[in-house]
């Protein structure tokens, strides 16, 4: 009931390019850089393609323009230079960047870290809290703001996927396995979350909300369980 109310308004944004936490932010930056690079490469290839038409076509009856002495030089330019080296350099750079970022997003040891559990089922989420063992919330996950939070993700039935696009990427809930996702919200607020892996007819409605509290709100939540 409360979720429905909460989902109205701009708090229901699922935009990955409107980050509200460090992980989503790093990935959004990655996206913009990759978009710029991809656009450049695309334009480059299209310009080359257009330039190949710079000479008028020849009549049908003509014999094919055969191999000539320049063939070797051409192979060097087109195949070694453009085909082999160009992608290798670009990809190596991108890969290194991607690996560094991936490293940063890992759930590393950190004394400040808060641990919560997310248990998926068709079609709701149950959240529980390491700091308040008796507390269980349904479809609403409470976290402290500006604090790294490890979400331990499990499922009781089929595969689900835990995704709060404005905070971090998604991670699956797999039967028999527990996956840990590090999330963090810069500021207190409400962030929409969804299940991202198709899980049956109730998939569309399999949503939840993350509420990030300031310090007082968080300790109030832990002690009396009220949001």
């Amino acid at each position, binding site marked *: 009931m409360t979720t429905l109310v909460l989902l109205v308004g701009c708090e229901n944004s699922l935009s990955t390019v409107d980050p509200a936490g460090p992980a989503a932010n790093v990935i959004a930056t990655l996206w913009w850089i990759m978009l710029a690079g991809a656009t450049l490469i695309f334009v480059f290839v299209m310009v080359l393609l257009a330039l190949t038409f710079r000479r008028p076509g020849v009549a049908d009856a003509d014999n094919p*323009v055969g191999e000539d002495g320049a063939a070797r030089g051409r192979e060097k330019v087109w*195949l070694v230079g453009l085909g082999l080296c160009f992608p290798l350099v670009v990809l190596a750079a991108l890969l290194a960047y991607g690996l560094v970022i991936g490293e940063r997003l890992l759930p590393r040891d950190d004394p400040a870290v808060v641990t919560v559990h997310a248990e998926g089922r068709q079609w709701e989420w149950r959240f529980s809290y390491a700091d308040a063992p008796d507390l269980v919330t349904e479809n609403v996950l409470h976290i402290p703001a500006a604090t790294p939070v490890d979400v331990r993700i499990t499922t009781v039935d089929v595969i689900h996927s835990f995704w709060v696009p404005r905070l971090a990427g998604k991670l699956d809930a797999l039967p028999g396995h527990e*996956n*840990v996702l590090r999330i963090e919200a810069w500021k207190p607020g409400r962030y929409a979350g969804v299940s991202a892996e198709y899980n049956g007819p109730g998939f569309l409605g399999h949503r939840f909300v993350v509420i990030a509290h300031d310090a007082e709100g968080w300790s109030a939540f832990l002690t009396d369980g009220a949001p």
Partner: protein
Amino acid sequence: MSPLRRHRQLTRIWQSDPGWKGWFTTVNHNDLGRMFMGTAIVFFLIGGILAMLIRAQLATPRSAFMGPEVYAQVFTMHGTIMMFLFAIPLIEGAAIYFLPKMLGARDLAFPRLTAFGYWCYVFGGSMLLFAMFAGIAPDSGWFLYPPLSSTLGSPGINSDFWLIGITFVEISAISAAVEITVTILRYRAPGMSLDKMPIFAWYLLVVALMILTGFPPLILGSVLLELERAFGWPFFQVAQGGDSLLWQHLFWLFGHPEVYIIFLPAAGVISTVLPVMARTTLLGYAWVIAAAVALGVLSFGIWVHHMFATGIPHMALAFFSAASTLVAVPTGIQIFAWLGTLWKGRPQLKLPMLWIIGFFATFVIGGLTGVMVAVVPFDWQAHDTHFVVAHMHYVLVGGFVFPFLAGLYYWMPLLTGRKRFFRLGETAFWLVFVGFHVTFLAMHWVGLLGQRRRTFTYEGGHGWEVINLISSIGGFITAIGFGLVIIDIAVNTVFAARIRRDPWRAGTLEWAMANPSPAYNFASLPRVSARDPLYDDPALPHRIARGEGYLGDAYKGQRETLVVDIATGEPLQVVVFPPNTPLPIILAFVTGGIFLGLLTKLYWMVPLSLIGVAALMALWAWGLGSRGDDVMRDVGHGLNLPRAATVPQPPGWWGSAFLLLADATFFASLIFGYAFLWTVAPNWPPPAYLEPGIIGPLVGLAGVVVAPFGIRLAERHLRRGGTMWPGVALALAGAAAMATAAIMAVRAAADPELHAYDAIIWVIAGYVLVHVALAAGMSIYATVRRYAGYVAPDRFGEVRIARLWTDYASVVALIGLAALQLPGAVT
């Protein structure tokens, strides 16, 4: 003989039966290639209609057109039809139709197998269509992840239709791949060494080998999941030692190579058509081949990029991310080879070229977004959103549909014999091209704004409405464009004027024949000495028609073609193909009984159909071979060649060898699955491991040694003119010993419903049993053929085939039985 008389005689020999009967009895690749492609296009239309339903549903928020259950069936069937019933069969059809023509052969290596594959495709595809029209279609997405697709999430029959129907269809992929491989390696024009082979054949060789090694993991996965659904064998149920991740590994071990199995033939079309459109030859032939091979190999090492969000360890992620970005290198080499080809030539903007430009503009975007999702952190956001939907359509439509349309227009003269007269094609191109980008370009963005794939509707207020509406409008424009393509082709086929030979002035052999292609392809088989034989010798077509090549004499009304040496292309043998026959469709029908029995749970049908299949196969093979009359054949130019059926390694041996490659991949996947569960699945070890004991392993080991020895002994005696019986008896005893060991293992195992370990024992032992039975059957068959006069001291090819299968059975028995005992032995 005059060219016209030769044409008439050869046509009489090679054409299909007259009337409606011809459709069901033809084994000619000209007919079957067209039938394959035509059926695939029908499935494309059905899949397209489903796409339109999807776009109609998503055009506006909170649409009441479809509910979630129906929508799930629609997107699952759209994906399934497009991947399994459109793309792969279209490739098979194109290969079947074009390869013999390009290679300079009169048909594929195993004509009846072509027909059998076609009918399996039709029957399997019909099962899925039936499910769709009955409203009980599969509904857990085209990759069918358990537990959702298993009894827990889908108790109905829906998933069974997918598992059983698609496996049935895969028979056609495997059989097509076997014969494409054998055809490319051995059925070429004399003198066509590997380095003179048309580039399209090189691509298809890579693709066929990829099908043989890529499809078996999926077939295994389907078998295991169906066993779980039907009998409760818990391979994917975590509580009893299974793991749903195993399915994902098996599926994507197939699924990623599949993407390149679809792309590489299209790249082959471009490498063939683009140089002709630019009046030049392909730049860097050897580079392009190396790139295709590299893509094929690399694509088997990157399946995990579909599972980046499943919590795979970080090191593995880094490895698979690196490998996935690396595939962009061979792709880049091809792109730049094509651009360099255009650069050195004089490109002309004819209709096929227009589609190739459409390919460049679209596929490059798809490739770039592909590199993006190969970067793990980005994939964690983009995965399972409409960003991925957009990406894959850029690759599939841009990288497969557009090139094949280029090819369709390029080869239309060959297929229909007509000129293009009504110029609807250009309009159609612009509608499809513009419509496509309108549909899918902005869809990337809506994905980044958080729209999940497979959601049947959405709420307003996310900024998704406008994009979805535009997307739907674009979808309908695209659909109109595709409709126009079909009308264009139909109208031109019926009304346009006949076209002269080789209208594009291309250099490859398929243009050496009249349009449309005659049933026999080549009036005589030419000797070629260049990569583009028609550039090398413009008079070649006339010389072929005048019968100046090989086998130009329509001898005894037999369907003949040459078998050549793999590397040099020197002719070695003459093969005689079987005539038209209803056997393939009957065999496919009876095979369908197995699948139907499993589907409807009328299990008595299964053994009954199996007996029918065995009988029909015996009949099938009976017609092959030679009784020793007419062994040598004068093929012309003073060359006297033996019949292929009489040599030590007849075509059937080659077919068996490549079928066994697929079979071995299946077995390796099974062992992989076993090792995966053992090491990764949470609820291991099982309550008890198998106790090895002494007798079982000893008996099994004895069989493993004796069976191959026995069949060799039989061959030796046979070649000395003696009796085969002692050797065959030994081989059968060996088979019996291996079977005994397998049965003992099963009897010592617990109930297969208890734990995935026990279920795996049953499957491995069952696999061994099946192969031991096959090997024994073949030994007996070869012996019977000895009495019928087909097997003789100088014609022992069939014994060699039996030997191949016996050796294989022994190897899998050794590995399989050892693997079963291993955990019990080490603990």
